[in-house]
């Protein structure tokens, strides 16, 4: 569980708060999506959840963030990292090895996993992420989507309770983006990992996440189950956040027919809703 309480943060070099009085609870086993326009503080919030802030980036930090009961300000980043795995926005700067298996070994070695266990953990992580066939490949020979999976596997191997990812599909095509989200869903549902994702691709996010938090100008302006958040289309429009066309369709349909139409996030749901309205 992640608990963010009255969190205000300002980077050392900055003149304005990156986050202002943020309160947010991410329960165990949740799949939370964070959305918001550029500069809203999404990455900052993610870094606060993983403890990178305040440890790696200096600044004024007020309030408290607790991860799995540990206060991030009072615990070392290394200890927090056992609980939270972070995938950075630029995967290429995160990967430090030239071969896939070495990348996954790295964290296992550092965190002192007994050597007789390491082999199994390595194999298991590759399998969970579905990249067993890439084990001996060089990183340079992999596609963007495959590299993203390697980065995820290198964290999954450490068996964190929570995985936080910063725009994991930013550079990927629609097909690979969907694959990454499918993988995150598997990790969330079958392996019980709590997943927090910052993402611009709202359509994909709404389909896979179960909760959304909307950030604007350093504040959380809305938080809750996906459909609840997407039902407030005027708010999303006002702050300049895209909304899945299916959700737009369902809200327009409700308005025009004067009937109750559930908020739809996928094309399939919208088709069903339309058929029900037409009888």
């Amino acid at each position, binding site marked *: 569980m992640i608990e963010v309480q009255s969190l205000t943060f300002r980077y050392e070099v900055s003149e304005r708060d990156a986050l202002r009085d943020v309160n947010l609870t991410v329960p165990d086993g949740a799949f939370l999506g964070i959305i918001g326009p550029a500069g809203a503080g999404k990455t900052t919030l993610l870094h606060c959840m993983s403890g990178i802030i305040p440890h790696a980036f200096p600044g004024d930090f007020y309030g408290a963030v607790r991860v799995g009961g540990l206060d991030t300000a009072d615990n070392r980043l290394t200890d927090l990292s056992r609980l939270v795995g972070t995938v950075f926005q630029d995967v290429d700067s995160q990967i430090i090895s030239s071969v896939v298996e070495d990348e996954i070994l790295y964290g296992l070695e550092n965190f002192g996993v007994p050597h007789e266990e390491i082999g199994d953990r390595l194999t298991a992580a590759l399998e969970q992420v579905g990249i067993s066939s890439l084990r001996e490949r060089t990183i340079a020979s992999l596609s963007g989507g495959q590299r993203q999976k390697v980065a995820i596997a290198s964290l999954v191997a450490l068996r964190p309770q929570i995985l936080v990812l910063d725009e994991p599909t930013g550079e990927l095509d*629609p097909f690979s983006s969907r694959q990454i989200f499918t993988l995150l869903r598997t990790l969330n549902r079958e392996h019980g990992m709590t997943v927090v994702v910052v993402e611009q691709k709202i359509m994909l996010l709404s389909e896979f996440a179960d909760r959304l938090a909307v950030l604007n100008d350093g504040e959380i302006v809305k938080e809750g189950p996906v459909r609840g958040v997407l039902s407030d289309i005027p708010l999303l429009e006002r702050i300049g956040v895209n909304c899945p066309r299916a959700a737009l369709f369902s809200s327009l349909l409700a308005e025009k027919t004067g009937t109750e139409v559930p908020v739809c996030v996928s094309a399939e749901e919208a088709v069903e809703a339309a058929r029900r309205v037409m009888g």
Partner: protein
Amino acid sequence: MIRAENVSYSYPGNAQTVAGLSFHIEKGEFAAILGENGAGKTTTVKLIDGLLKPTEGKMTVNGLDTAKSRVSERAAQVGFLFQNPDRQICRNTVREEIAFGLRAVWGRREEDKIRTRTDELLERFGFTGDEDPFALSRGQRQQVALASTLAPSPAVLILDEPTTGLDYRECTRIMDFIRQLNEEEGTTVVMVCHDMEVVLDYARRALVMAGGRLLADGPVREIFRDEALMKKASLLPPQIIRIAGELGEGFREADDAETLSSLVAAKAERRRGA
């Protein structure tokens, strides 16, 4: 305007990346190139720009054979906006940045003309000119890159995933600007884009690629409605097109949420009346 005749390209020492491309894009068109990663989209636009020369076949832009002229010579006619603005931006102020590209194309002796044009673009994009590009947000840097790409008024504008890393508002701003340019000044636009909603909203023609070959070429909506084709190219059509297609006869023509919801509401109304 852009004419590809049986163009193939292979990176040195590799298998062919694109093969047998033939298409013809007229002046004033707005075309999108679609396909999954590795389909050859970026290679194709680089071939159009002349950054790559065909290993076989012939590519002509505005009547000039790309293999026989230098890219830097053609920069006045063809503008290329890259995915990452940081590779383009190299000056300390926005004004200098725009002027830098103009100087490269027009030459240093045209300072007056360069100043006028720079002022014009600064105003159009809402910059004062004194901003430090590296202190701007990603979306604003992309606008600076676009402004300097457009500065020499190229007849052809190539966009390689111009909206990557931008939020919705920034994306809309950039794309609206490009549409305006296309409609008002007749600039030919060729765009590589992964966001099918953006393609639907802005492009009129789509070229679909897979495995380095051209699979299909036609009006955007027709292309998106061809389910078999979309599947073959590993593409997912925009949500509204999928919903409309699924609802079948009478709805298929709708391509935005407004129209489609009206059609559905009207049918529901008729049902209730009957």
